């Protein structure tokens, strides 16, 4: 019955969407300047990490589930981004 249905607000997700778009624009502007140094690469990887975490937590809805599942997803994200960062660091040597 409808009286048993909790109201599910959408506004927090709109803020998440906006942050994701702004971080994408940041990456695009940096990309247009074709800058390649450790600071820029670190900033881009960190902004990508934030974007990934936001999609996992809010869009996929994992902020509501038990830590076990979150650890699997966070571990994947951190491992992939960490190895990408290490490989880019090797390329800058």
């Amino acid at each position: 019955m409808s009286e048993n249905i909790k109201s599910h607000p959408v506004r927090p997700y709109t803020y998440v969407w906006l942050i994701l778009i702004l971080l994408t624009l940041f990456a695009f502007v940096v990309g247009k300047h074709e800058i390649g140094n450790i600071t820029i690469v670190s900033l881009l990887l960190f902004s990508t990490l934030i974007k990934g975490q936001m999609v996992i937590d809010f869009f996929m809805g994992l902020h509501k589930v038990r830590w076990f599942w979150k650890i699997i997803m966070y571990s994947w994200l951190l491992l992939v981004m960490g190895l990408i960062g290490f490989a880019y660091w090797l390329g800058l040597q």
Partner: protein
Amino acid sequence: MIKSTSSPRAHLPGDFAIWIFIFAELLVFGIFFVAYAFARSYNVELFNASQSTLTREFGAINTVVLITSSYFVVQAVTAIKNDRSDVCVNWLGAALSMGAIFLVIKIIEFYGKFSVGISLSTNTFYMFYLSLTFFHFMHVILGMVILAAILIKARRGGYSAKDHTGVETGASYWHMVDLVWIILFPLVYIIR
């Protein structure tokens, strides 16, 4: 035992089977991304020169398009949780439209590369660029098929606030497709 409503849910959103599929897909894409990054470290000049030939605008627009489609899917899930099947159908339609825009932009991009003779064998960068983006392209198509099936069922009143596992299942897959592109875009188009 009475549980607090604020405690975390035990299960992942949607059908658990889709999460096995999602974890497997993420593993494959993760290996692909790391392989690209290490291949690049051995030939930075070639990768940077080839990356400069990509149209970054296409990549950025497609990122915005996929993020927005994911947001529309979140709206669809929220609508069905609020027992608004009609609104859910509209948001799923909007998400599908975004998916179609993504495919059109990607086809234009692929056509541009193939028309100047670029192929998988051109160099290591293009091998990775074409195979990674095409592999993702196929996942977008599969995601759209899943969303379309959910839309058809939702239009027939197949989901409600109490029974919306199917909507959450499709949504989880679509967000995975978005998550993968969020890493692919800076990796292939931006970082140098």
